[in-house]
């Protein structure tokens, strides 16, 4: 995944979660929907944040097979 894509997706997830927070505070959406958005959003946010931050994408290698 390109870093730019990861950044955009991260922003989308953050905006959706923030929107859910605001809407739940205002009482437009029920509390459980807000929490459900966060359950799906938090892991995506963490992973996309990492994919945006990471140094570079390496070439796929075989797993570690011992020293």
């Amino acid at each position, binding site marked *: 995944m390109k870093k730019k894509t990861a950044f955009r997706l991260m922003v989308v997830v953050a905006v959706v979660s923030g929107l859910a927070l605001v809407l739940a505070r205002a009482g437009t959406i029920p509390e459980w929907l807000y929490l459900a958005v966060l*359950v799906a959003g938090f*892991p995506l946010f963490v992973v996309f944040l990492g994919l945006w931050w*990471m140094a570079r994408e390496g070439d796929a290698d075989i*797993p570690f097979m011992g020293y």
Partner: protein
Amino acid sequence: MIPYLLFATAFGLLLLGIHRKMIARIQRRPGPPVWQEILHALKFSFKSTWVPATASEVLFVSVVLIAIGIWTAAFFVLVTGGSLLIIFAIYMLHKIVEHGFGLSSGSPYGKFGGVRSVISAASEIPLFVSVSAVAIFTGSLQISDIIAYQAESGPLFFAIPLAALALYLVILSKFPSSPFAIVESKEIVSGYKTEHFGVWRAGLETCNGLKTYVLLLTFLSVFVGAIPFIGVLLAMILIVVSLAFVCALCPMLSPFDSVTIQTIITGIMLIYVLYLGAFG
């Protein structure tokens, strides 16, 4: 909820750091600083990352998301006073996530870690025992009801100490370098997380922080009841310190011994709950 969620993750990582530091001091090593685990989580997200050539890509990435997702859900269930059964279920399903971590990469070390995590499934039954002991006493499995019950008639810790011990052992078996931590022992490199490096490991660290916070908060909500927030944090640190003493002083058991001891504990706890059900 968002700020509390982020706080819980960071504080859980801090607790793991305190745990590590305490173990080091007990063993007369200087040890890393207490915020080491938070630094770890950050450091791993800056590392270069890829999916191993032999891995099942979708599963390899999805287990990271599922790992964080289920503990986020557990956190919300706990905070909103939902059913204790759901937290029990999520705790057991963490096994499957570990299994997925291990098997999805194709690495033999990961596979051993994953298989070990499935073999030690017996370690979850004490949790079931403490859940049922709590249900016998309070007549409900809603955490809000359990807290209300304790506000009325005192902490359950004094009423059913053995059930509290069962949950304590369950928490112990999930802590790094505990006697039961066979899934990540050193002879299989890092166990199930061997191949999850970089960003994936950062996700796993996030999950671990949240998991630690949720497990300790469950213990406090179910056996101590409502206490002020600062009290909760201090009590968590106390529990972690006590866990650190166990982890620092006990060697890691071999897989066979670990499973045997956990099964024996389970047997004792089952007899205890039958006794409670019949005469309690």
